[in-house]
């Protein structure tokens, strides 16, 4: 009797503490060799974020996340990143050097304070930022993440590119190097390449006037197709596997989708009448020139008036090269909001072309992205590489959103979790999402099992 009780008591105490064990996911390298991973690309791969290259942004780049996850499948050694020294970092806005942005309060021309991106250090001098970006760290290399903000595909092949682009110059192992010459310093067994966005983004972010779209045809360094092929070949000097990513439809990123086309709100009939009277001469002239263009105003929201150099007018009437924007056309995030609110932009004065992506420019961008992606798919196939369909994922994010671990990712500015305060580059959480897409594609292609990363361990845009 007593024995039985003690047997039961023993059984009870012995079993209590058992934690169920799971061992479902066993990382394997499959058909790939991940011993030495190297990544190349542009600002997206560098971890540029919030309008600048800064240390924690670089730590959270999708390339750094992939490198961390590859440790489970045989990657060895450091994954060396050319870190910026500071957390405020350095970015390029126009011709000016700036720090990163963060969410804060700014006061507009009407004295209204609102939540918006502000510089982390608005008082940083050009000189100190130039020192930060100009400090050479090439000797501390070689680096595994050789991504260069601003680089187009042809730039990677350009000898001495570091003298033109300080984001490369700072970590170049030799002044006369092209970026592709860095590959042999590492001799990667596996590479990733996400390049080509800037070949069309520069055109788009300048409203179609500040830069050209890289042509498909042309020799390496000039044409997109030959340049892309050449860069991959540099990798294949040592690598036995790799992954490339295509170009998302850049016109669906927040930089192009945040500012509405019709922010001119008229609440009084007197305003409407005054504007209509003001544009009567324009409308009369257009009628005379047998152009269908008219500028009209009504109560409520009105489309902005924009400059459009493509409008045909007789000599002497160049001032009339303007029209109202259509709903399909895009206003860039770079437009000075105060100029709309207080400077009469869009109503009394046409918005300069550099802040608008017109329908024609949008089509040019879409065509370029489509033809680049054909090239990238062709290279991936010819070299038997994994391919990330970034274009497809961007479409999903901008059409209803992508959900992961309870986080909704969309192309909404700040609230969409995917894009940082500059509206172009990824948040840390967005980088984790992209890293998982890369890992999915690698695993599928190479029959490997690289573990994915939980996105909830990374931050989206932080609010004050």
């Amino acid at each position: 009797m007593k024995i039985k009780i003690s047997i039961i008591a023993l059984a009870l105490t012995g079993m209590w503490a058992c934690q169920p064990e799971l061992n479902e996911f066993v990382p394997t390298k499959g058909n790939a060799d991940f011993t030495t991973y190297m990544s190349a690309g542009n600002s997206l791969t560098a971890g540029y974020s919030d309008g600048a290259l800064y240390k924690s942004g670089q730590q959270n780049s999708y390339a750094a996340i992939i490198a961390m996850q590859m440790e489970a499948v045989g990657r060895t050694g450091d994954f060396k990143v050319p870190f910026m020294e500071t957390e405020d970092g350095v970015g390029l806005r126009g011709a000016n050097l700036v720090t990163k942005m963060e969410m804060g309060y700014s006061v507009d021309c009407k004295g209204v304070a609102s939540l918006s991106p502000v510089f982390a250090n608005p008082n940083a001098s050009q000189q100190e930022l130039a020192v930060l970006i100009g400090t050479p760290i090439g000797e501390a290399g070689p680096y595994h993440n050789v991504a260069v903000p601003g680089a187009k595909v042809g730039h990677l092949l350009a000898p001495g590119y570091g003298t033109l682009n300080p984001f490369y110059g700072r970590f170049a192992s030799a002044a006369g190097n092209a970026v592709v010459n860095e590959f042999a310093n590492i001799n990667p067994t596996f590479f990733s390449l996400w390049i080509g966005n800037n070949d069309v983004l520069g055109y788009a972010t300048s409203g179609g006037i500040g830069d050209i779209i890289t042509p498909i045809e042309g020799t390496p360094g000039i044409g997109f197709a030959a340049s892309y092929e050449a860069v991959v070949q540099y990798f294949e000097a040592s690598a036995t596997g790799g992954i490339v990513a295509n170009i998302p439809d850049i016109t669906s990123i927040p930089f192009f989708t945040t500012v509405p086309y019709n922010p001119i709100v008229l609440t009084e009939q007197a305003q409407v009448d005054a504007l209509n009277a003001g544009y009567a001469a324009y409308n009369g002239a257009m009628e005379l020139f047998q152009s269908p263009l008219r500028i009209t105003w009504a109560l409520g929201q009105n489309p902005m008036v924009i400059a459009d150099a493509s409008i045909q007018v007789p000599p002497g009437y160049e001032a009339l090269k303007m029209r109202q924007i259509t709903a399909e056309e895009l206003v860039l995030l770079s437009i000075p909001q105060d100029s709309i609110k207080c400077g009469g932009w869009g109503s009394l004065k046409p918005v300069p072309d550099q802040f608008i992506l017109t329908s024609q420019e949008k089509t040019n961008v879409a065509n370029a992205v489509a033809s680049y992606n054909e090239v990238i798919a062709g290279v991936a196939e010819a070299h038997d590489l994994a391919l990330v369909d970034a274009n497809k994922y961007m479409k999903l994010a901008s059409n209803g959103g992508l959900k992961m671990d309870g986080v909704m990712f969309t192309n909404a500015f700040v609230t969409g979790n995917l894009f940082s305060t500059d509206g172009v580059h990824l948040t840390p959480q967005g980088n984790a999402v992209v890293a998982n897409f890369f890992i999915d594609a690698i695993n599928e292609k190479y029959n490997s099992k690289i573990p994915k990363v939980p996105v909830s361990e990374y931050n989206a845009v932080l609010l004050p």
Partner: protein
Amino acid sequence: MIKSFIFSLLFAVAGMSVIAGGYQVRLQGNKSTGMGLTGTALNLGSSSIFYNPGALSLMKEKMDFSVGASGIISRITFEKSGSQYQAETENPMSTPFYLYGAGKISDKWTVGLGVYTPYGSSAKWNDDWAGSLLIQNISLKAIFIQPTVAYKINDKLGIGAGFVYAYGTVKLAKSLNYGSGTGAELEGTSSNMGFNLGVFYTPTEKLSVGVNYRSKVLAEVKGGDATFSVPQSIQSLVPTNNKFDATLPMPGNLDFGLSYQASEKLLVSLELNWVMWSVYDTLTFEFEESGSRLNSSNPRLYKDTFIPRLGFEYKLNDMVTLRAGGYYDPSPTDENYFNPETVSLNTIAFTLGLSVKPTEKLSIDLSYLQLTGLKAEKSYSPENFAGTYKSAAYIPGIGVSYHF
């Protein structure tokens, strides 16, 4: 004395761990627990207030009291799909209890009162685990108070009915995607009603059959406290202090039982429980302020389950009775709507029991229940959160019954 004991139990009660299908906890009598949690066709004395009020009318004794509790030690392990990421719950031990008293007021009529805890769930994940945007921790508790009356139609047939007053508390926390330390905490109480009906029939001296219906009870939280920890800049959109309404259904049960006295010493009990989980279709939260932004409708899509049970009782001698049993409790969850707030897996259970009677009137009832939640990969598709879960629970219990 009894009264103060009731109150101390009420205040001592901790959350019930997730131990069975959904958040039902059937540990409402230690004799029954030892026999695979069967009880519908057993004449259990006052414990029949829960298992089958019909059996109460055929209670052998004039007065019967029964009190007991179990300690649930539960463990859950999670591995995220496509990764080596693992998380474990740190569930506090929870202690469902019961307290019954019944007495014959005439040859035909028996009355009784039961206080018990048939539903509950608690899961405590780390605050920053990978599923924290779905749930960090949750605790559901329900205490049922059931006055009961039973009527003996003849020596073989009895019926009984109980009115149920259910008091529930719910508390849950989840993080929000505004960075570390941000999140929402909801806390509320409910008071609702239900009923418990049973028929008990002994066609022969050796055979008993029972049917028991316990109605669903909707735990309706009205005006619960919602606390949102969000960045200061959006507190005008998401107020830090808010009120919420939500309803969590506790499903109805229809139980069929059969017991057979195979020999003078051996009793066999068979049972089938129909648990009407399909009532739990959607969990909706409505908020008093910023409702258009905060209200949510969360699909759960539970399905009815059928639980087969088998139990044995072996009377070793006048002083010692041994029990054993087992059952299979299928998960009521949909594999694409499996939320880590209620990790309910297909579960295999084994039970052991032992009663010792130091005197003719007093019985000390020990029980032990071990649950194995079978490993399964599940996802909560509305939030795209998937992984493999495995669970285990170890539940010792002790009770005392006294009759005269």
